């Protein structure tokens, strides 16, 4: 049976062609979140390889043995209704496999939606990442600085990204450090990551957002603690302040290079409420969907500049809402806290 020959030759050569596993970014993690995901993926590949093997062996066996040939000419196969036992086997075994993978999924999803175990005792460094047109804005409320199209983080430190968008839906993704998450205009999402090694990692938007989508990348530079502190201090001393006018200019621009500022846009253009606020607006305060108490605690620890705790945005916002949605044409509203 020549049928499978070319296919297998092809698959084999494809695998050999691959320039080694290290170029498979997703399977080359540099932090606990990405490592959990990489382990999950490899585990699922092994499980699925087993399923494939069973099907392929049965398939080849059946095709070779029961193909029409001279020796079985005139053979009329019998009527065969099915077999309860066999059918039960191929219902129950897949159910077991699915159950096993479900447990893995729930555990790993829970793990990456929270601060990694190794960093549980730390207070996460909060960075607001927002997208506009085809660029990324990174605001560090604790340090009072802001960057465009690059983000520096200290190594061995829990980092909590809070994502939102000044326009279309984008997806924030640093494949070697963590899985992606959407940044949307009407709610705040949270992404936890931490890096185990210093180095530069590519980050990108992975959700199609229009003309400039293909170029919407940023650098994530992981630094030692000392380097990070030095960098922050240098920014505070040398970089210009981010005024509201300047920020409006940034929002309007389609593409930009790197920029650095010694203040953040959060004070005059606050992010939308987070998913928890979203839910609580509908009266389920004790059951936060995000299920991350630290995230909520953090709001109290950092009251300023911490606009999200004051945002009254909920599921049914109306024009009178005090804190407007972040959008480029908002001019007269200013943040009233502090």
């Amino acid at each position, binding site marked *: 049976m020549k049928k499978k020959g070319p296919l297998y030759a092809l698959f084999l050569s494809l695998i050999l062609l691959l320039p080694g596993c290290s170029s498979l970014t997703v399977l080359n993690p540099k932090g606990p979140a990405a490592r959990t995901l990489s382990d999950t993926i490899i585990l699922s590949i092994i499980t699925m390889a087993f399923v494939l093997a069973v099907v392929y062996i049965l398939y080849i066996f059946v095709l070779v043995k029961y193909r029409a040939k001279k020796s079985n000419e005139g053979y009329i196969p019998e009527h065969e209704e099915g077999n309860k036992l066999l*059918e039960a086997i191929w219902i129950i075994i897949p159910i077991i496999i699915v159950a096993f993978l479900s447990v893995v999924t729930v555990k790993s999803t829970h793990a990456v939606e929270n601060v990694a175990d190794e960093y549980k005792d730390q207070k996460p460094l909060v960075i607001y990442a927002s997208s506009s047109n085809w660029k990324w804005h990174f605001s560090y409320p604790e340090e009072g600085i802001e960057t465009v199209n690059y983000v520096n983080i200290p190594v061995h430190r829990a980092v909590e990204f809070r994502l939102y968008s000044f326009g279309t839906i984008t997806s924030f993704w640093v494949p070697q450090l963590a899985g992606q998450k959407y940044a949307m205009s009407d709610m705040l999402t949270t992404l936890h990551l931490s890096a185990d090694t210093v180095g530069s990692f590519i980050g990108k938007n992975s959700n199609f957002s229009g003309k400039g989508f293909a170029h919407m990348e940023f650098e994530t530079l992981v630094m030692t603690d000392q380097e990070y502190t030095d960098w922050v201090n240098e920014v505070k001393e040398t970089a210009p302040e981010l005024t509201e006018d300047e920020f409006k200019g940034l929002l309007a621009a389609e593409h930009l290079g790197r920029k650095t500022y010694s203040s953040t846009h959060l004070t005059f253009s606050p992010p939308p409420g987070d998913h928890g606020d979203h839910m609580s607006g509908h009266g389920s305060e004790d059951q936060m969907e995000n299920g991350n108490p630290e995230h909520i605690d953090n709001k109290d620890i950092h009251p300023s500049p911490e606009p999200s705790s004051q945002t009254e945005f909920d599921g049914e916002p109306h024009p009178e809402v005090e804190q407007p949605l972040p959008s480029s044409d908002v001019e007269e509203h200013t943040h009233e806290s502090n």
Partner: protein
Amino acid sequence: MDLEKFKVHGEPLIYGAMISIALATIGILVGLTYFKKWGYLWREWLTTVDHKKIGIMYILAALLMLFRGGVDALMMRLQTAAPEMKFLDAQHYNEVFTTHGLIMILFMAMPFIIGLMNVIIPLQIGARDVAFPRLNAVSFWLFFMGAMLLNISFVVGGSPDAGWSAYFPLASIEFSPTVGNNYYSLALQISGIGTLITGVNFIVTILKMRAPGMTLMKMPMFTWSVLITNIIIVFAFPVLTVALALMMFDRLFGSQFFTMANGGMDMLWANLFWVWGHPEVYIVILPAFGIYSEIIATFSKKNLYGYKSMVFSMVIISLLSFLVWAHHFYTMGQGVMVNSFFSITTMAIAVPTGVKIFNWLFTLRKGRITFTTPMLYTLAFIPIFTIGGVTGVMLAMASADYQYHNTMFLVAHFHYVLIPGAVFAVIAGFHYWFPKVFGFRLNERLGKHAFWWIIISFNVTFFPMFFLGLMGMTRRMYTYSEETGFGPLNMLSFVGALGLAIGFVILVYNIYWSTRYMPRDTTGDPWDARTLEWATPSPIPAYNFAIVPKVKSLDPFWESKQKNVPLYEDKITKIHLPNNTGKPFILGVIFFFLGFFLVFSMWIPAVVAGIGVLIMLGAMSFDRDEGFYVSAKEVEATEKKLRGETV
């Protein structure tokens, strides 16, 4: 100023397309006039209510769209074949991948399947027609006009460019100010209404018009799959109708359902879209399971193994298909609980699907397998679709999906599911039922050539994408830099796409060659098949069955051949048939203009066309059609002529 909106600017490619469309149109018009075929076209096709002819028109339209979507695919693969390619610019690329998705799913896979079911279902259940023949014509013309409306967007005003899923706010007037997404909302709306009508029509046909003796559990598997598919259509398409209507209000009338301000919610669109969109995947795949079941049974000379569990698994899949939509946006930040729920329901679909795979394998076991072209596609489906299936389970794991979401891994997965699961199926079904409809087989040698080109090239095209995804390449990128290292695998993928194109060209050449040279079949049963459609002569007379068959078992035709049980017990009597009508076609044309005027916000003509639609609907509801009778004598004569013998 108004004229400016119609113009598509820029590229030589688009001007080339305009010129070729104009030349083709002129060619067709001149040809029809020269050969004096206008009357023939009107009488035999445009006004027909015969389910077989409507089916053929669906399939022709689908084949055309396959080539349109295929050219889109080639352009995309060429543009990404090497880093920094300059073949298409970003805007053009975005339009190309958006229309590729829309056309392949909605205007190729679906109509191809609806075409096959139009031709085959009434025959397979021993019926003379569908339940509502005139409504069936309405369905077709609405689908066709919707498809045409989307297709002219390429040269008039610009195509939709926000992806086939058209996520808001990207698809809103603010971020996508061209008329492209107006076309999206209206073309899909018009053809979607047609599909919904088909759904109702076929549910009624299958439930009410089966031959005497054919209980539900004696229905052929293809009929079962079509019944379930149409039930899904009836539940899913109203969601699309509503979503598209809201989209149209947002884009044309300034409402703000999905915008960023004033209470609009962008993810509401995503939810509505996928509440329809996920079942839609099963709408195109379940009938494929039916087609494969028929072909496997025929060419291994066996009845289907585990018939009951096959039916049951399809019912389970159809229920689960409505419970998994949020797996399309695990990364929305909906939390561990919600993601886990959708992960588990999604993975659960693997269980009934696995049941089907094993039942097919056991149908083959102890059979006598002949490798005809339709059987080859069916056999190729099993290993390839299994890869699609297992990668589907991998994607279903919410955590892992954080790394696959929107990458080429996903693109590879759904092509590994949809191409064997829908495209191979319709090609297999096309080869399998072709002699039934036209009275001669397609050439086997050419068929196998095309098969090998398509199967091998398919894997060369899409397998590298799994690795590209794991390398971090996102979908819908029109270009990338050298340093990313995406180049070599993309080039390989482009080579595969060229091979696929060659395969499809051979397939079409086969149709041409076979029409000219293949010997005619007078038996009506060239494959020694099992189900009722093969009991009619080929080509099938307008009334299908001279005598309505009596069904006593699953595979009644096989039983009657094996055990010499007579299928027909009654005498030939006169047969009632419906008259042709031009109203569905006219309604379709008016709908086309209504859509076109709305796309360009031309309100006065739109209102006029809207009134036209209402008038046509009124005219059709008050239309009395008595139909006509074919006399018993005439039926006998036709049967004799078609069989080449006495009945």
